[in-house]
């Protein structure tokens, strides 16, 4: 079965700092990749997704992620974070043809104003 590793469990940044959250997965075949965000008190919502094509994916709120197949990675980036980016971020992987996304443990991001 596939697994997803998010290496940073807690990240604390100041506003305007750059962000990169790591995500690695273990699955050798075709995958669909996702980043979800959960703002305090809110439900999980999709930040961005990769199915095929350009490995650099742009999402909402200035986030982007790059799929590097050779490294089995799908890292999330934002050049300049804001206080409102404080949230928990989850990486998810779904093998092509599967109905079931597997989630990482999540990364808690705190941005200080």
């Amino acid at each position: 079965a596939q697994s997803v590793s998010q290496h940073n469990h807690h990240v604390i940044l100041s506003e305007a700092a750059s962000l990169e959250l790591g995500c690695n997965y273990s699955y050798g075949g075709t995958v669909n990749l996702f980043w979800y965000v959960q703002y305090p008190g809110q439900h999980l919502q999709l930040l961005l997704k990769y199915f095929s094509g350009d490995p650099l994916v742009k999402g909402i709120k200035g986030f982007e992620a790059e799929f590097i197949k050779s490294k089995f990675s799908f890292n999330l980036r934002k050049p300049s974070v804001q206080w409102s980016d404080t949230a928990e971020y989850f990486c998810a992987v779904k093998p092509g043809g599967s109905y079931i996304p597997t989630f990482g443990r999540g990364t808690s991001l705190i941005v200080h104003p």
Partner: protein
Amino acid sequence: SQTIHQWPATLVQPVGSPLSLECTVEGTSNPNLYWYRQAAGRGLQLLFYSVGIGQISSEVPQNLSASRPQDRQFILSSKKLLLSDSGFYLCAWSVSTSGTEAFFGQGTRLTVV
């Protein structure tokens, strides 16, 4: 547009009591349905998923069961709650074809006392 409703939002139940959490989806037909449990620092654990009425797959053996009595209704149940059942439960749905993301409900915070 599609919406997902999950209730109740919070629930406090004594040990040994039964449980019934309900989730309904509107605006789509034949969705894939999921129950996840979210624990702090442990990400989202898939409990059950369903690809059709009466079709339930269990990912983790435990004190819970799921049912899908109607196309867009997914119920999480227990006959006798344990303290370890406390947690945050999330319902989600996705389009029945495999290459799509999951959409999450608001979640239910269950505390077993």
